[in-house]
């Protein structure tokens, strides 16, 4: 009796599974590939990354704003420099030297405010992950904080 009810429960579960499986068309039961293995959607822009930031809304000026630079340095000291050196030397993450020359400002801004999505999608970010092996933490930067850090990075790369 017990056995029958267990079998019934298994059968029931199996039916339940089949009905609610999101991958219905795959009737052979093969697993969905993990996200990172899926080819990038064609819409992804590797120059800009993914997030709210565009060339327009970052609005770079000819000259650096010294207040933003100072604030960016202070925020970096709390939230960033534990893992990033200001030189080219890799610590936990890559050194910051030259970053504003390697990447577009919007890519940097999107990466530091939206790291999880970017690490999952961006080929450059994934290449860095293979080197560093630590996913960059989301440090919950506000828009202003992120913008100030960018200003500090520009200063670090010699902008005036």
């Amino acid at each position, binding site marked *: 009796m017990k056995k029958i009810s267990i079998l019934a429960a298994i059968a029931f579960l199996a039916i*339940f599974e089949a009905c*609610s499986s999101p991958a219905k068309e795959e009737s052979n039961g093969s697993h969905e590939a993990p996200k990172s293995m899926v080819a990038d959607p064609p819409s992804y822009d590797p120059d800009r990354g993914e997030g709210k930031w565009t060339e327009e809304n970052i609005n770079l000026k000819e000259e650096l704003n010294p207040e933003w630079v100072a604030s960016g340095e202070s925020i970096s000291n709390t939230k960033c420099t534990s893992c990033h050196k200001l030189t080219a030397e890799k610590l936990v993450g890559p050194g910051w030297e030259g970053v504003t020359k390697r990447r577009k400002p919007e890519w940097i801004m999107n990466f530091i405010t939206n790291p999880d999505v970017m690490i999952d999608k961006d080929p450059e970010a994934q290449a860095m992950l293979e080197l560093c092996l630590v996913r960059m933490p989301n440090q*919950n930067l506000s828009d202003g904080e992120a913008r100030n850090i960018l200003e500090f990075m520009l200063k670090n790369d010699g902008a005036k």
Partner: protein
Amino acid sequence: MKNNLITIAVGGLIVASAFQSCKPKSTSQAVTGDAASKVYVAPGKYDEMYNFVSGGFSGQLSVYGLPSGRLLRVIPVFAVDPEKGWGYSEETKPMLNTSHGIMQWDDLHHVQLSKTNGDADGRWVFVNGNNTPRVARVDLKTFRTAEIIELPNSSGNHSSPFLTENTEYVVAGTRFSGPSDNANGDVPISSYKQNFKGYLSFISIGKEDGKMDLAFQIECPGVNFDLSRAGKGVSHGWFFFSCYNTEQANTLLEVNASQNDKDYVMAVNWKKAEEYIKAGKGKKMSVKYAHNTYSDITHSATSEMKTEVLVLDSKEFTDLCYMMPCPKSPHGCDVDPTGEYIVGSGKLAATLPVFSFTKMQKAIADKSFDGIYDGINVLKYESVLHGEVKKPGLGPLHTEFDAKGNAYTSFFVSSEIVKWNVKDLTVLDRVPTFYSVGHLCVAGGDSRNPIGKYLIAYNKITKDRYLPTGPELSQSAQLFDISGDKMQMILDFPTIGEPHYGQMIMADKISKNQVKIFKIEENKNPYVTKGEGESKVVREGNKVHVYMTAIRSHFSPDNIEGIKLGDEVYFHVTNLEQDWDVPHGFAIKGSTNAELLIMPGETSTLKWVPDRVGIVPMYCTDFCSALHQEMSGYVRVSPATSKVPLQFSLGTNIPKVITAEVTK
């Protein structure tokens, strides 16, 4: 010999099968085919409700998801918890302070969610410490204990913590009466009737911040106050307490406290008490009790010792308290959603009396009294009774209510739950529990608007439910679907400690307010280190303060030298992460207390007193990244007379290894 064994075995089988037949029913009969689908919550899907369950003698509060029964969290409250450093870190030690000093354990019995207009609002959950009388408030934004208040003049804080419908007060009645704290307690125990009193504590709750304050106490006759419920709706303004041992016996209570045919449910007019307190009628009594508060801004607790309480004497105010006779040792006294009906459960009685609030008010107005008990008017049983549920079962304990006018009562002795109609008192359904059920919890069952849907039975005995684990088995909770006419058991799951009581609440009332990180810029811990540039080691006499940071995947500093025997070392570790669910741990070899678990943006302190010379490693205990194993460091401990200077570093070997020193 062999024959003897066989005889014993056969005898055992007969006994076992006889026992089987006494059981409520077999499991296979109790569970029907669609139970699994009702409790299955797929990976990645959330449960519908949170279930806050007392951890009993573990001293903690457990949180389960329902209907899956998955354990989501254990919140440390009254007992130290090495997993989270609770009671071990310097910041949390003051939370366990009492008038007896630091108290590392208690017995957590009841759980009640804060309420607005009679419904759970998802802001706080209140719990009681039974042994060393305390009430705690847990903040549901952080799932942390935010406040603990000790209760003077109280012992066995059992009828606690129960809340009024707008969280005006949380009440705590003493289970054990005794001489007041400021009286000479060195009296013969046999002088119970002369010297023992029972105190009911009313703790007011800050409307916005939830802050607790012991507003007043009512001195009552020396009996055992067992459980309590606040009135609601029509009976808002009143509290009800079940009283046993009205015999005022002091030995072999299992016999001597069940002599009277009827004990009492005591009704207390707390609005009246408030008026008397405002009018200055309370008498100041000198006492000593601790009041502890935890701050999410300083990430630390403060403990304050208080020395006074206002007391009203129930004998002096005839309109404050009334006794309603209740058959044989009442346990639960539960108020239905309308507030009109109060169910008294005489745990040794064969009937279940239901009292009417309207009739009670009339009886008071008519002075329909049946004598006086220790200065308190006793109302006539017949004049306050709505009716009795006849032959409901054996050993009624607790009653909860659904949205359709039904009540559910647990029966400890006959191990069953009985559903009955509150108005006409007819029994509608009964189901077995496995075994010896105590409290019940219906979703919203103590509120003005029950959700119904689920009912949980918290069982005292778990024989044959799970794989055996030695003489001891985990206790258990059993989930029933009560949405239909008949109750249906759909799940049972193990629980921690003794799952004494629990409360359910719809998940979205809590989940939307969840704190995900502590903002590092708002961290006001006096020992915070905001960035590696600020990390340092400072000596103050024989105290050494290490201002340390943690981030995936290193500490700063990771090398410390110049610590000497006789030093007390304080590791103040700040977690620099600002990402949800990335705590870091901190442990050091030879530490006699515990580790730290530090949330993103938080600062926490571990005191360590080295006991020998040598190199001592420290490491992160919470697997934080692929390089978690690398998150470690060394502390060098030198003799007390050593001249090694205090120094620290990250990423530099200091001092440069001196061959001479190494080979020496």
